[in-house]
């Protein structure tokens, strides 16, 4: 640590060069954090999934509905603790580009299924008492500036009303939120009974069921039992864990993780060239000085350490800045992007990977110049001077 002063002074030997190198490292790690957050938005759903929740969809396709009569039959299956249903409404608010998810469902069963969501008890009760009531997520409410008591008109694109119109109106009875920073609340819930009664077609059906497995029961076995129950009927089912269900979606987008990794690969390759070049220039310039250190009694190993520390120092300053500022930007942007790219978040695993990368980058950039410094022959170096 007492060598820190020496390392620091040496690092800033050429101020512009060091500053530009630190800035290059900064950009690389900023890109790393942003791309990690994007990757997480696509793949992180798996993280949030509860291992004890299962999703039941129509076997042929997710867009085919399931009869509501299945609800009781599912509830009766061994290992099922509680079950509720959701459907996809697919409307928009004011303009077609203001699309966010809307789900008709039952108030109490929904929030019982998702304890990670918070809603004040009195709001939930108010919603359960108002057939045309709705609750919206805090992310959504913040984005559009909605408040309790507001009238919320949604225009349907699929579900025309029985009276022929596509205008559905709801009263905002509650705003729910989550304390998990990875979760998104950019969606809306309204009453299934109102939905089923007012819609022009599809009565008696739902989109899918979500259920919780009883403590100790094997989710895979329960899933098999459910599918067996409805095999060979008009609407066969496919039951999977919530995690598998989330993953099946992200897989459909394509291999996002691969794309992100390839881009980051190009970025870090370039970064290593830049900092490696800086370090080798830095050592080449002060061969006599390094020789003098050795004459003073610094061992070969300590000279290696001094050069390597310089490389690590530069990389750590740039890297810490990149990760830090990246994290701040992600936090700031997350709510803005909530409707467009939910789940934009920098997980702890990415931060840890970032730190590991900083160490590796610092070592790789400095190792060859450091080895050269270590192997320097004092006599040869001084005679050159």
């Amino acid at each position, binding site marked *: 640590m007492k060598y820190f002063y*020496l390392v620091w*002074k040496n690092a800033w*030997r050429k101020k512009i060069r060091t500053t530009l190198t630190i800035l290059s490292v900064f950009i690389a790690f900023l890109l790393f954090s942003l791309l990690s957050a994007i990757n997480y938005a696509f793949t992180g759903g798996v993280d949030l999934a509860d291992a004890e929740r299962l999703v039941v969809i129509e076997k042929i396709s997710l867009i085919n509905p399931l009869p509501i009569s299945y609800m009781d039959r599912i509830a009766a299956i061994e290992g099922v603790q509680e079950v509720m249903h959701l459907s996809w409404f697919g409307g928009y608010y004011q303009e077609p580009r203001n699309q966010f998810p809307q789900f008709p469902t039952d108030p109490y069963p929904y929030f019982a299924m998702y304890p990670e969501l918070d809603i004040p008890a009195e709001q939930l009760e108010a919603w359960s008492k108002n057939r045309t009531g709705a609750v919206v997520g805090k992310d959504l409410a913040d984005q559009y500036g909605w408040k309790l008591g507001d009238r919320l008109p949604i225009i349907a694109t699929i579900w025309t009303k029985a009276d022929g119109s596509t205008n559905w109106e709801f009263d905002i009875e509650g705003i729910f939120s989550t304390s998990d920073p990875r979760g998104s609340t950019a969606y809306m819930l309204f009453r299934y009974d109102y939905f089923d009664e007012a819609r022009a077609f599809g009565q008696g059906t739902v989109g899918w069921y979500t259920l919780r497995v009883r403590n100790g029961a094997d989710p895979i076995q329960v899933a098999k039992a459910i599918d067996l129950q409805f095999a060979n009927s008009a609407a066969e089912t496919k039951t999977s864990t919530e995690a598998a269900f989330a993953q099946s979606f992200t897989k459909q987008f394509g291999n996002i993780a691969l794309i992100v990794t390839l881009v980051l690969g190009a970025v870090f390759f370039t970064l290593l060239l830049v900092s490696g070049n800086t370090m080798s220039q830095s050592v080449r310039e002060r061969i006599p*000085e390094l020789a*003098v250190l050795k*004459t*003073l*009694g610094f*061992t*070969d190993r300590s000279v290696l350490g001094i050069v390597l520390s310089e490389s690590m120092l530069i990389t750590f300053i740039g890297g810490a800045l990149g990760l830090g500022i990246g994290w701040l930007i992600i936090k700031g942007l997350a709510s803005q992007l909530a409707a467009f790219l939910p789940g934009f978040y920098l997980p702890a695993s990415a931060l840890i990977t970032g730190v590991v990368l900083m160490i590796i980058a610092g070592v790789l950039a400095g190792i060859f110049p450091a080895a050269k410094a270590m192997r320097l022959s004092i006599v040869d170096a001084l005679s050159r001077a």
Partner: protein
Amino acid sequence: MTETLARLENVSRTYTRGKDKVEVLHNLNLSIPKSDFIAIMGPSGSGKTTLLNLLGGLDKPTSGSVTVGDAQLSSMSNSQLSRWRSTNVGFIFQFYNLLPVLSAQKNVELPLLLTRFGSAERARRASIALDIVGLSDRAKHYPRELSGGQEQRVAIARAIVSDPSLLLCDEPTGDLDRESADDILKLLQTLNREHNKTIIMVTHDAQAAEYANRTLHCDKGTLETRVAA
């Protein structure tokens, strides 16, 4: 009868350049008493720098032994030599070789980083050394802000800061004007006479050699004594 500080016994040093072998030192014998001030003169390529390197543990003889104090340099490993150098030898070069990124004070403190002294103690010892060479008022200056003579004095301060018994100087006044050269040589004399430092100075300047107690001539790898007046 003064004690011997350093001894070279039957020392030879041969370099291999490709297929050629160059014998720079040939069966050299030298005994250096404590507190002596010796000048070594000779044509270039005569091996005088090699002699200095051997005495300072920067190089090892091809045959023979080099002993300084209690240390048998020729049988020590590289890391042992490093450790030995930090407290036993001070080097002074023709081109000063100060670190440009450090101030005079910090340059002088450099050897003390290898000791267990805390930062306050290191600063204190460096100040003392700078005082001895008469540069206390330039402590915070950087090498580029100092004249040649001043830089060399900082180098001397660095060489004496860990209180070594032996100072090895390779053409210390080679790059200085007459006046600065004299100042430096007077300083070396002071270090020798008042601080009991044993000094071995390689030089091609006869006038510089006169500041020493005696002069040895190095030619084709052997030494010859010619006593100073």
